[in-house]
């Protein structure tokens, strides 16, 4: 195999594996902020038990997230040297900002979050929890800004020619607020909230079904359900806005997402389907002219199709992009249906009466994960053959000095290590979940300044 294929497989593999964890950290961080906040307000130790329990789970997801995150930063230099030279002037400031503002914040306070329970007062601990959560939110900002710049470059000019061409920054804020960054950042954040909320829903649904920690679980379930309802609905608005942006900025990507080839025809919107790239046909169920309507408010209006682009400027894997995109949308709809139905039952006071629904929630943890992954695959494969849209081709972005054998070696290395990591992750999660939150009840008594803290709140 050639270097390009191997390097692409390696990047896709390492980043897809990495992306299991940061969304969980962001989402669980939000839940932990709610739980500790609830504890500080009410002084009710049940919330602290929950906060401690979820902090222990968070430690595992965060640890693996950090360990697998540095890999991509290094891969830019090792496998994608030409790309690094090309975008370094622009990409670099986003990465540097990520390191300084986000990683240092979250990793600095992580020590206090995990080990500081008996060392600092509950309020300082709460601040540390917020610090870690904000750090994880910020890290999404800068990395999404950098990736969005690759989708919709702005605030730059090109210096040099041929092999020495580089993008140089001309306007920092135009780079940061490039046309797609805000939509995509919100999309990523809310996707992460869903990943975290559905993990909490899954674990506590399981406890309720097994008749363990029932009272604690009901409280946590409701907090997570609240986050899930708001997030799944918000995702519709954000997703729509994001799709409009793609239509405007990267029409070839949108055309691939819906399998639309003919520029003179109205574009359909499919629920499911299969793209036959040879014959330029889509077999599936959907709304004829739906995409035209969504973009132009008219079912008959033509939409720019793949054929409007030269052969070598179209994404290749049209059917894969189509499938990934539609899996994401379908899951989004399922998540809305699930959370709204559960919300309705909650309102009727019957939330925990239906075991079959709780079983669905136990397994639904996998859905936001799949949606996050497929969404990114659609976004990144839809940008091909460009690594920086319209400027730099993926095939030109490689390291010239690196051979296929070197890339193959590191690919196998990461494959083995990540298989081990995944096994460890699942094993530890299972162990911690089986262990449950209750053991902490005794230990919480050790905490310094505890009584003083809840009293001051009551006096207010």
């Amino acid at each position, binding site marked *: 195999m050639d270097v390009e294929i191997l390097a692409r497989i390696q990047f896709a593999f390492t980043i897809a594996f990495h992306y299991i964890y940061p969304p969980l950290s962001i989402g669980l961080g939000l839940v932990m902020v709610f739980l500790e906040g609830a504890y500080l307000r009410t002084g009710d130790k049940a919330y602290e038990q929950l906060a401690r329990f979820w902090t222990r789970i968070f430690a595992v997801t965060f640890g693996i997230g950090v360990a697998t995150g540095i890999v991509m930063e290094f891969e830019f230099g090792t496998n994608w040297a030409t790309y690094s030279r090309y975008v*370094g002037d622009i990409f670099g400031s986003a990465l540097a900002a990520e390191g300084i503002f986000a990683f240092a914040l979250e990793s600095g306070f992580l020590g206090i979050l995990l080990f500081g329970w008996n060392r600092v007062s509950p309020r300082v601990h709460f601040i540390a929890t917020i610090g870690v959560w904000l750090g994880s939110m910020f890290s999404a900002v800068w990395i999404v800004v950098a990736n969005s710049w690759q989708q919709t470059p702005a605030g730059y000019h090109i210096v040099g020619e041929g092999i020495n061409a580089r993008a140089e920054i001309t306007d920092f804020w135009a780079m940061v607020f490039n046309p797609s960054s805000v939509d995509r950042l919100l999309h990523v954040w809310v996707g992460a909230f869903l990943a975290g909320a559905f993990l909490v829903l899954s674990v506590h649904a399981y406890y309720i079904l097994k008749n363990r920690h029932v009272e604690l679980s009901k409280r946590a379930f409701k907090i997570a359900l609240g986050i899930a309802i708001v997030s799944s609905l918000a995702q519709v608005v954000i997703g729509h806005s994001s799709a409009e942006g793609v239509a405007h900025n990267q029409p070839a990507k949108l055309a691939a997402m819906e399998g639309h080839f003919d520029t003179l025809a109205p574009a359909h919107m499919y629920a499911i389907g299969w793209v036959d790239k040879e014959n330029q046909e889509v077999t599936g169920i959907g709304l004829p002219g739906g995409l035209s309507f969504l973009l132009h408010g008219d079912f008959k209006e033509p939409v720019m199709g793949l054929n409007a682009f030269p052969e070598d400027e179209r994404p290749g894997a049209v059917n894969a992009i189509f499938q990934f995109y539609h899996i994401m949308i379908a899951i989004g709809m399922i998540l809305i249906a699930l959370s709204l139905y559960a919300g309705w039952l909650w309102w009727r006071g019957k939330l925990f009466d239906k075991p079959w629904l709780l079983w669905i929630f136990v397994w639904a943890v996998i859905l936001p994960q799949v949606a996050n992954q497929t969404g990114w695959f659609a976004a990144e494969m839809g940008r091909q053959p460009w690594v920086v849209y319209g400027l730099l081709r993926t095939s030109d972005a490689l390291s010239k000095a690196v051979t296929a054998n070197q890339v193959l070696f590191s690919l196998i290395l990461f494959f083995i*290590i990540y298989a081990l990591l995944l096994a460890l992750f699942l094993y530890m999660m299972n162990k911690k979940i089986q262990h449950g939150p209750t053991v902490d009840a005794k*230990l919480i008594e050790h905490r310094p300044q505890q009584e003083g803290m809840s009293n001051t709140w009551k006096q207010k």
Partner: protein
Amino acid sequence: MATFLGLDYPTLWFLVVGGIFSGYAILDGFDLGAGAWHLFLKKEKSRRIALNAVGPVWDGNEVWLVIGGGALFAGFPILYATLFSSMYIPFMLFLAFLIFRAVSIEFRSKEEMKWWKKTWDITYSVSSVMLSILLGVVLGNVLQGFEIGENYEFVGNWLNFINPYAIILGFTTLALFMMHGALYLTMKTEGRLFDKLRLLLRRSIIFFILMFALTTIYTLLYVPALSDRFKELPFLFIFPVLTFLSIANIPRLVSKERYRTAFLFSALTVSFSLILVAIELYPVLIPSTVDPIYDLTIYNAAASEKSLGIMLTIAAIGAPLVLSYTAFVFWTFRGKVKLDETSY
């Protein structure tokens, strides 16, 4: 060319990157050193205390490397591309060991089985040793330069990173970190473990002084270009002199049992060593052994002035923040290690 305090932007960014890597070496240096000693501690309780001495801080320390990598990418993208693609295998191994170290710390104490703990103890210690050596190996290659050709592409053999100077520097780095880590552990322990660490500390000081002497002699004999700068500007000799004094001060303070001050001086030694590296190289970043016209310098490898200006602003805002919460975390976990239910 825009300047600030009389220094042009690439020079300023060179100092920023140097400062970050110096911070990384001081902070993660003691984690790696403590990890390298891990298997020398035999009792389960001693190992747990040593592990928890770095427990709450190692992750924050490792982040300095992420920031350093980002700073290098941001300020000197051409260097980043050339260095990482030329040193492909060392960097990939570095990543693998970095993951193994993180996982070992995280999972070691999660099960009671003997084989479980033993396995993670070994991976933790081996990873720490290998990470220290690999850092030195990359530094050794940067100092003596490697085969950089046209368009700043590596034209040498992928195995060339293994050479005598790189290996000497690898072990010197390991020795420095082991001394630094032993000092850190003596500050964090008490009782019989403390006595044991004092013994290990003495050995590590001897190991380091021998390695440092070897590096100095080898550099003067076989990599003479590195001492040119000192011949041009004799007042710079103050830095090697300060480095020697700082090193000599460590055994003196240890014999007086002033471990905290000794730790400070081993941190200073780390800094001074990197200052020597910076003086020897500046303004070159990596010399080309093919032809000096292909040398990577802070000027031909730098990002645009506009970009450097933005990043200097980011660094100026970010640095006080990072330093203040780093200080806060270390202050929170000051004193001897006490194991509790949240410990590793």
